[in-house]
């Protein structure tokens, strides 16, 4: 079974109540499942479908469309480096390479120690403080190569909770 926390289940019911049509709650439920379990499994897709009175394909087609949902577990810390123009011209590619080097990992993979997954993402809407990186839910601004190295050290040393998260 799904083993969702009581808190997640409570937040799901609250989310469903926000809409006159239950189907609208698919995205909120997918976010909640992913926050709870780290990724969206086949079981979760079927579970959400049944919860909202939908076919599994109605949920599955969203998981495959929206970039933020993932089908497989990732590293304990998720590092998303902005790839788009304003960050790139300020050195975003180099920032991304520094993170990969620090953890000895390729793009989109789980690092060998299971610590991180480094990804390129498209514009994070903080172009004025480029290059930017999201670590978990937290945005880090002006992350040049040196700052990427120091953030990597923080993560390895067990960064403060605000900078962590899936």
């Amino acid at each position: 079974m799904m083993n969702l926390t009581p808190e997640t289940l409570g937040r799901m019911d609250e989310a469903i109540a926000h809409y006159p049509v239950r189907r609208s709650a698919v995205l909120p439920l997918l976010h909640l499942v992913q926050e709870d379990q780290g990724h969206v499994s086949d079981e979760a897709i079927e579970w959400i479908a049944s919860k909202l009175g939908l076919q599994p394909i109605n949920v599955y087609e969203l998981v495959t469309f929206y970039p933020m949902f993932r089908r497989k577990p990732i590293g304990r810390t998720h590092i998303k480096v902005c790839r788009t123009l304003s960050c790139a011209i300020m050195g975003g590619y180099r920032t991304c390479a520094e993170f990969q080097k620090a953890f000895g990992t390729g793009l989109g993979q789980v690092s060998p120690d299971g610590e991180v997954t480094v990804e390129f993402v498209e514009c994070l809407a903080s172009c004025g403080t480029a290059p930017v990186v999201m670590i978990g839910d937290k945005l880090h601004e002006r992350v040049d190569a040196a700052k990427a190295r120091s953030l990597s050290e923080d993560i390895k040393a067990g960064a403060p909770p605000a900078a962590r998260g899936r």
Partner: protein
Amino acid sequence: MIFRHVDEPGYTSDLACYVRNGGYEVLRKAVARKPEELVDQVKRSGLRGRGGAGFPCGVKWTLLDRKSGKPIYLVVNADESEPGTFKDRYIIHQDPHQLIEGSMITCFANRVERAYIYIRGEFPEGARILERAIAEARAANFVGPDILGSGYGCEMYVHRGAGAYICGEETGLIESLEGKRPYPRIKPPYFPAVLGLYQCPTIVNNVETICHVKHIADMGGDAFSKIGTPNNTGTRIYCVSGHVRRPGTYEFDVGRLTIGELLHEVCGGPLPGRTFKAVIPGGSSAKVLRFGERFRGKRKVGADMVEYDWGVEDIPLDFDSLGMVGSMGGSGGVIVMDDSVSMVEALGNINEFYAHESCGQCTPCREGSLWMKKITARMVHGDARAEDGALLKSVADQIAGRTICAFGEACAWPTQSFVAKFGDEFTAYAQAKKQTRAEGAAELV
């Protein structure tokens, strides 16, 4: 106007601070007014949408089907995704109650009883700030079943997206809010004002636009229309990024500044030892402008037609002037590139974005955006050919105008403009045996 308080020291995002600075007073007065009168004020204000298209807000509201008997919805478009744009994030983080007050005034004016803020998935912190602010506003009776004892009620919820740019397109956003893939709808018949969310009349407005509504309700439409220039009224938040000394968000009267004034005086000019090469004035889909090119024609000033002869620096930052020079004010995202940037690589970067974000519904866009990306990536990775500029243009020309939504134009315009204005660079790129990157230049593809 919108940033009046946010930059003050000690200004916080909580309700108490907002109220201390006069917050929700405009809503208090608004709910005692006639809804039609508020709509009229917004019409008189000349406010144009700040999300990208610059469509007049009052007209959008007037198009609402009020006779259908169906509920009317407001959806605030906070899916800020146009590369180069970062104003909505700032408003949401620094002053969420201004957005909520503007939303509630909009709802009251249009008899909306349920509003959603569609916030992009990459703003988890912003979503939490908004949820907390709505809860505060509800507890204080600024949102909820009986707003300020007026008998008028409206609920408001935050809905998070999940990383898809196309959700910024208003009908795609509506599909997404209905729990579907965000494939944009065909217009007609699916104009949101008639057949929007759940097939009900729906207003979709940008965050900044909604904030302006508060100020229009406060000062009156006529007073607002005197700010800025005719047909380009109010203030506008310019988001400047890239190669300037002081990037950031700056609010000015629309059209008061030229591109040169914004970049040199406000943003401190180019980085040491560099010169400006190109600027994209309205988000990455706006057509690029090349420093050194001239724009000539006639424009209306008052009742007269006056000739203009502008360099890039001379172009006033308003919707109409940027349109006249073949680009657009768009979302207000101004991306600056200096002489260290290779235009072939910059286009390669932009093309990768659009290829990633095409929803795949229409063939010309799905295939075309991918081919443009493949061509520029091949060029950058060592196999540039003499015919590539023409090839890119031919692909782009077959996308624009042939798709359900404006993404077709959004992905074609960068390629069309880069190739047209920097054709020499594309040719030189193909002729060079080996590409050398300027000193200090970053990798872009």
